């Protein structure tokens, strides 16, 4: 009884003497976030300045929306934006579809060892960096690489996957799907284990074959998960895969391959046009922020999802 009372007291009464260490613990992360996250957020102010390295964030002359006007009038900008959207949406749609179909098919495998082996292998590419995967694919996709050898075998001419504007975006989407579909399927597979086995049993009693079971039990069973992940992916609508594209593209395919992130990198760090590049980056940050806001609101509404 006495114990319960004191527990109660600790719970309700906030006291600094006891809880100050909690604040001490937040200091290291606080300082680091302040320097490397919040200070750069303030640093976006250079998008409204003619940034001069000598004067820094605080002292460069203010020019208002000059750079934004410049960006939106830039003929390349439309191209970059559409490349970004095409590749990002392509990856989300095809990747999601592929992961779901893969999870559904894997779910039909009854031999546990086979299932485990397949799973283990298809997760692997996700854990390798784009430098490694890029290095392998640049070789595989070259004019005389393994993949073109197979294509030649069927009597077709070699395809320049990484050097032809007709194929570059498709190649980026497919290699990304290849790298991550297995990993993407993990959550769907986990959701499937939560489906009540009795549902399958009674469906079988009613004469449902396996296709019907998959369509009417498994798929609806994982539908909430699909909706949740689809909603959350809205926030990635401008993330077309910076790492991948920076490693695998070249001047020849800038027209179809350049995305917001690679443009910011090229113009900003390689040509040192800090203000212009930051304006483009800020455009992306703001749109992404709005999209993430929308996606979280929807996810919360429909799936009761909270990040913390």
């Amino acid at each position, binding site marked *: 009884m006495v114990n319960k009372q004191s527990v109660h007291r*600790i*719970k*309700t009464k906030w006291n600094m003497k*006891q*809880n100050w*260490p*909690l*604040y001490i*613990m*937040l200091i*290291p*992360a*606080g300082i680091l*976030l302040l*320097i*490397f*996250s*919040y*200070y*750069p*957020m303030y*640093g*976006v102010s250079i998008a409204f300045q003619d940034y001069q390295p000598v004067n*820094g964030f605080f002292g460069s002359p203010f020019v208002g929306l000059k750079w934004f006007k410049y960006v939106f009038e830039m003929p390349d900008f439309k191209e970059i934006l559409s490349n970004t959207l095409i590749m990002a949406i392509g990856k989300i749609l095809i990747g999601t579809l592929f992961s779901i179909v*893969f999870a559904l*098919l894997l779910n*039909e495998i009854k031999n546990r060892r086979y299932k485990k082996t*397949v799973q283990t*292998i*298809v*997760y692997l*590419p996700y*854990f*390798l*960096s784009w*430098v*490694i995967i*890029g*290095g*392998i*694919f640049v*070789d*595989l996709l070259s004019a005389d*690489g393994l993949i073109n*050898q197979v294509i030649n075998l069927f009597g077709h001419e070699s395809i320049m996957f990484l050097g032809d504007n007709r194929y570059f975006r498709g190649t980026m989407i497919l290699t990304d799907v*290849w790298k991550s579909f297995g990993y993407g399927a*993990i959550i769907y597979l*986990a959701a499937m284990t939560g489906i009540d086995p009795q549902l399958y049993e009674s469906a079988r009693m009613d004469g449902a074959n396996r296709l019907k079971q998959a369509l009417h039990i498994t798929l609806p069973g994982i539908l909430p*998960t699909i909706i949740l992940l689809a909603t959350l992916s809205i926030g990635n609508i401008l993330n077309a895969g910076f*790492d991948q594209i920076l*490693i695998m593209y070249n001047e020849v395919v800038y027209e179809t391959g350049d995305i917001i*992130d690679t443009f*910011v*990198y090229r113009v900003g760090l390689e040509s040192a046009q800090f203000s212009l590049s*930051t304006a483009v980056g800020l455009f992306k940050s703001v749109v*992404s*922020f709005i999209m993430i806001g929308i996606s979280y609101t929807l996810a919360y509404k429909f799936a*009761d999802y909270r*990040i*913390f």
Partner: protein
Amino acid sequence: MKKSVGSKAFDGFNYIFLGLLALSCLIPIIHIIAVSFSNKAATSANLVTLWPVGFHTLAYERVLSSWDFVRAFFVSMGRVLVGVSVNMFIICVTAYPLSKESNQLKGRTFLVWLLVFPMLFKGGLIPTYLVVRDVGLLNSFWALIWPGAVPIFSIILMMNFYRSLPKSLSEAAMIDGAGHFNILFKIFLPLSKPGIATLTLFEAVGHWNEWFMGMIYLNDQAKFPLQTYLRQMLLPSFAEGKITASDIEYVKMLSDKNFTAAQLVIAIIPILCIYPFVQKYFVKGLVIGSVKG
């Protein structure tokens, strides 16, 4: 229950299809391994598919005798060691107060938002680069550590992990006079081993694979971690200067392809070594992290 013919046919198809799919994930890796052990003539004539032709280990000898590569490998190892320690310290310590209720941590909601906000809105590449430059980290090993030292998503995972521990534990310890530091280090951390293991692997893979920070923050190639070094090697413009005098002998026997392949294979090895653990834990961690509802 007896299986119908259609069902059996589907099973057969399904087993074969998924087998092929799994193979498609392995073939690029097997191919690169095969190339790394093959000789120049076979590689140039595109004879190598999944099995080495003219087996030898010269490519590996050349890679391992290249000081640049070995040094980059050790920089990466050092980065993983230091970076993961820093990350894990921040994760474990930051998640603890945030896992408390707001009657213990006043302003908790605000503080959590302060942590989450940088995940939603980023200053972007250029301002971050300028900050790293202005605080004097450019061309320093620490540029690979500090800007990424607060892994927000992992902190949230750890916070949820702490919250799943029974509250009565810390309350009982409080009554016995333990302070928060004692509770964290003597009760919470020992109980959080599975969570810590998961996140350690998470962060280790992240540090091992990260290459971009090395590329933009470091000018001195002697400081490059392995992935940044490899990315430089893969650039065609850089390849011309790749051959040094001591390499001439190797060049007769090896093509650039063999050499590059061997480098890639060595960079994959550490991942393959921890992969069995990573895989098991990642699946759990990911599921806990995303479908907690």
